[in-house]
């Protein structure tokens, strides 16, 4: 039993290595697969992931499970080969290598299989640049035999042109060429963001060592002296390809991250503080935009009698007055990690706990309200200095369950909230007085900090059977 499991695991390792090679090919930026193929490919990778997990954390029936998963991997491989024309050449080769690994014969000869596959892993597209035909031919022959695809260019100019249209994994660059010399080609490549990471191996005679050194300082990855040892050539090419693979993988990953980030910032950047956006960026799968039920603390605030106050003011002044106030309040709400949902004239609707809940949503909401009231002193000082009216704000807080989601249509949508808790908050806001912060019992219950709590009131709310108990918050307890 032990032996059977051992050999099953060894076989699995061979297969996992083969799939690794396939994955490298598939993740190259130049590889394009249609939807069905991509889907099958993902399923194959997922199955391999499970196989890997199994050998690291064997189940009781590990051998049986491994055989089944290997069967699945092989099945996906067969599916992918059903339409060979749908696959790029190198991808097809990779899939076939996986199928070879899945064959019974491979099970006993893990090592041999593995070697065949590591060779598979290290082939790529090489560009050989040399003005002398016999040099190009020699390199071409040597490298093609090892399975690489070899492109040639007889001048620096031709090389640079080729590099713009072809994906190349490593460039073999002759130093001394008429026209644009090797150093210049190198410099052009390093200056081009698309080519900067492509490994370059300089080739020259011993007499030009000092120029070679200069090239290495300029970014060349390696060098070979003529006449060169073919084995050394292969080894350096292989190393260069390995380097390129790593770079390509990283690049793809980086681009994926950037895309996610842009989407999230575009969707939420305007409503949320930076650290909430950053938090979401760290785990975007956690976002439910389609609609989810959540407990949130709702804040509604407005300036008492604003309409009357502003009746006699010129429109531009009203906007200035409003924006000074809203600007200050926005800063505070974002500082306390609230989500600003809406401005309705002088009224602000903000929410604590969506799109992400935190343990201290209620406390932050209360402290935010206190900070907002405190800030009114300065707002009014500035208003007074400009001859503008004195403003007094009322704030209501309520904790309850709402439906949160991206509400609207394709042309116009916003992250909004629906539920009784919204109406209740509105009712509390109606009765709150100037300079007051009124919070519902539901919010009070969840507070962990110490606050000075004032008068208690009981309100009836239309549409809700139970009455709502509210408390005035006077500040943080000293």
């Amino acid at each position, binding site marked *: 039993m032990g032996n059977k499991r051992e050999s099953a695991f060894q076989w699995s390792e061979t297969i996992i290595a083969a799939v690794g090679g396939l994955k490298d090919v598939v993740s190259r930026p130049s590889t394009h697969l249609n939807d069905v193929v991509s889907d099958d490919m993902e399923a194959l990778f997922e*199955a391999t992931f499970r196989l890997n997990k199994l050998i690291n954390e064997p189940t009781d029936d590990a051998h*049986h499970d491994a*055989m089944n*998963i290997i*069967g*699945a991997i*092989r099945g996906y491989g067969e*599916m992918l080969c059903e339409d060979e024309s749908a696959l790029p050449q190198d991808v097809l080769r990779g899939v076939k290598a996986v199928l070879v690994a899945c064959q019974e014969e491979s099970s006993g000869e893990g090592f041999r299989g593995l070697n065949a596959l590591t060779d598979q892993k290290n082939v790529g597209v090489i560009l050989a640049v040399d003005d002398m035909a016999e040099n190009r031919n020699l390199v071409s022959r040597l490298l093609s035999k090892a399975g690489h695809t070899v492109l040639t260019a007889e001048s620096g100019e031709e090389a640079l042109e080729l590099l713009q249209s072809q994906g190349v994994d490593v460039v073999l660059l002759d130093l001394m060429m008429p026209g644009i010399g090797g150093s210049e080609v190198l410099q052009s490549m390093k200056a081009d963001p698309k080519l900067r990471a492509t490994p370059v191996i300089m080739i020259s005679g011993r007499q030009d060592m000092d120029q070679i050194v200069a090239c290495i300082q300029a970014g060349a990855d390696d060098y070979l002296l003529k006449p060169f040892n073919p084995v050394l050539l292969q080894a350096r090419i292989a190393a260069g390809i390995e380097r390129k693979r790593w770079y390509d993988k990283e690049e793809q990953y980086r681009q994926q991250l950037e895309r996610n980030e842009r989407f999230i910032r575009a969707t939420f950047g305007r409503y949320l503080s930076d650290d909430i956006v950053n938090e979401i960026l760290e785990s975007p799968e956690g976002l439910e935009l389609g609609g989810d039920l959540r407990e949130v603390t709702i804040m509604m605030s407005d300036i008492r009698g604003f309409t009357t106050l502003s009746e006699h003011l010129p429109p531009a002044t009203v906007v200035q007055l409003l924006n000074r106030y809203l600007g200050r309040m926005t800063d505070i709400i974002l500082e306390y990690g609230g989500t600003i949902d809406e401005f309705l004239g002088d009224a602000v609707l903000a929410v604590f706990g969506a799109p992400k809940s935190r343990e201290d949503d209620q406390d932050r909401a209360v402290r935010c309200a206190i900070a907002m009231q405190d800030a009114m002193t300065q707002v009014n000082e500035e208003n007074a200095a400009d001859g503008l009216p004195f403003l007094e704000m009322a704030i209501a807080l309520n904790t309850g369950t709402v439906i949160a989601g991206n509400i609207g249509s394709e042309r116009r949508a916003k992250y909004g909230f629906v539920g009784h808790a919204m109406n209740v908050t509105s009712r509390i806001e109606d009765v709150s007085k100037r300079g007051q912060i009124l919070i519902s019992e539901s919010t009070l219950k969840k507070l962990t900090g110490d606050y000075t709590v004032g008068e208690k009131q009981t309100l009836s709310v239309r549409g809700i059977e139970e009455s709502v108990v509210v408390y005035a918050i006077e500040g943080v307890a000293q």
Partner: protein
Amino acid sequence: MTDTAHKLLLVEDNEVNREMLTRRLKRAGYEVVTAGDGAEALERMRDSAPALVLMDINLPIMDGCTAVAEARKEPALQTVPIIALTAHAMEADRAKAIDAGCNDYATKPIDFPDLLSKIAGFLS
């Protein structure tokens, strides 16, 4: 009648393998319902009326052969074709499967084109 001619029940406990086979069978044009153990297999046979059953013989809870034997006791399930999926090494498994009431067997690793022609044979 034409609808049930295309519905297969796949009984396989390994999730990964089950997903792969489901995908392949669907791609071949069949409707697929699945079960992960012998007891579930019996339930599905009763409530989904598949035209053919693919049954992995090594199953948890109620093993494949027991499930098949149980199924054959029920009048409604006496004639549905059942193809056993057996691990290749066990000759004894295959004999047991036929004795329990399976119509045919396919050995793992599954030769898919062969399996498809077996299925087509039973459904025609």
